């Protein structure tokens, strides 16, 4: 088991494994997202209150979930790099940050599109949307800190530390934003708080969730390969891999 763990710290091994995994992950993601979209958008029954507008949940909820998942992954990978000085941890963190930020942006855009028919406006200061927006700011901080350093190692460690500070703060920010909004305006707006969903609505949602996870894995593998090549560009194995 430990040899496997050590191998994961070796760039050429990571580069090869990522290349092997990426197409399979992408194919599985395409299957699951395809099923989720077709079943969710065409066959699931419309919501009795929201009509067909609720269907955006099939993109919005997985994106919002992935935005948090990617942030946690980034912090954990950064911590592995920081604590055990494993360079691949930083590579994973660097590869994850832009994907996570894109998921956050997707969740914000779909959330505001959902708000148009529900609230009559593209943007309401709904607590969940607001904390998603702050999450985007946290991503922007990490994304802009890393390249600000000329030395890559320093940039990596600084970004990892910031991601760790951020991951401690994410729940604090989330709950304080909830508290803020519940005080300022009552529950005048239909909340997400959904009662038990019928299976016909839930199945496509779960499929979309799994599909988004796999899609994230596939994109991560691709970005990780680029990241590894860029970081190891001075080494012999990269030159040989590029020749062949």
């Amino acid at each position, binding site marked *: 088991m430990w040899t496997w763990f050590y191998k994961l710290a070796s760039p050429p091994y990571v580069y090869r494994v990522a290349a092997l995994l990426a197409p399979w992950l992408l194919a599985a993601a395409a299957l699951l997202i395809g099923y989720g979209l077709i079943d969710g958008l065409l066959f699931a029954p419309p919501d009795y209150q929201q009509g067909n507008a609720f269907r955006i949940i099939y993109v919005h909820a997985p994106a919002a979930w992935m935005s948090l998942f990617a942030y946690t992954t980034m912090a954990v990978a950064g911590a592995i790099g920081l604590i055990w000085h494993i360079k691949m941890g930083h590579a994973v963190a660097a590869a994850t940050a832009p994907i996570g930020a894109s998921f956050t942006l997707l969740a914000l855009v779909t959330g505001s599109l959902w708000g148009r028919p529900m609230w009559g406006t593209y943007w309401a200061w709904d607590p969940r949307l607001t904390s998603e927006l702050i999450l985007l*700011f946290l991503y*922007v901080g990490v994304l802009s800190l890393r390249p600000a350093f000329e030395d890559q190692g*320093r940039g990596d460690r*600084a970004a990892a530390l*910031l991601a760790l*500070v951020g991951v401690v*703060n994410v729940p604090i920010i989330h709950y304080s*934003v909830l508290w803020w909004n519940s005080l300022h305006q009552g529950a005048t707006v239909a909340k997400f708080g959904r009662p038990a969903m019928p299976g016909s609505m839930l199945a496509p949602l779960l499929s979309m969730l799994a599909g988004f996870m796999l899609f994230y894995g596939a994109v991560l593998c691709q970005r990780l390969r680029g990241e590894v090549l860029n970081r190891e560009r001075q080494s012999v194995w990269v030159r040989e891999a590029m020749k062949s």
Partner: protein
Amino acid sequence: MIGMFSALRLILQRELLLSLRRPDQLLQPLVFFLIVTTLFPLALSPQLSLLRDMAPGVLWVAALLSSLLSLDALFRGDAEDGTLEQLALSGQALSVIVVGKTVAHWLVSGAALVVMSPLVAIALGIPLAAFPTMLASLALGTFTLSWLGAIGAGLTVGLRRGSVLLSLIVLPLAMPLLIFGANATDRAIAGVNPAGAMYFLAALCVFTATLAPFAATAALRITLE
């Protein structure tokens, strides 16, 4: 080798003396605080009744921005002339130095801002009865912000143009402070018991002051080495 507490005292003494020798650096953020709060009545409306509704928000946003201004200089001067490296090599724990510098920074920026705030509060029409809550919330809030800022300053001290990045990093982390601080002041103005928000603010302060020294020290190590 001197003990930890005498080291802490010496650092505090040095920092306070240095900022007293350069009073303009101490005064400029305070003047900035005054100017920002003057902008709001000009931009919104001079009616005191209207201003009073917005006063907590105005006060807190201005306080956050003016504390940020001085944060960039927290480690920069000492890092540029090599003092920070000497301090790090002195054999004292780096965290002691970070604690000393951050507390000194709060005393000359945050605490000074708290002392200054009644002036602004009167101009914004905040009733006298709300003053104790406002002062206490600002004191807790600026102290917490100094700690969050120490992490940001530690991360950006080696960068040439770090000040914008510093705001970008610290402001999202400071948003809970703004929520609870402005809310406590708001409630005190409305005559409602502000205890709930104050407790949250105090909890955030204790939590941040416990963990942030370690994070700020780690950040400084990354940029120093």
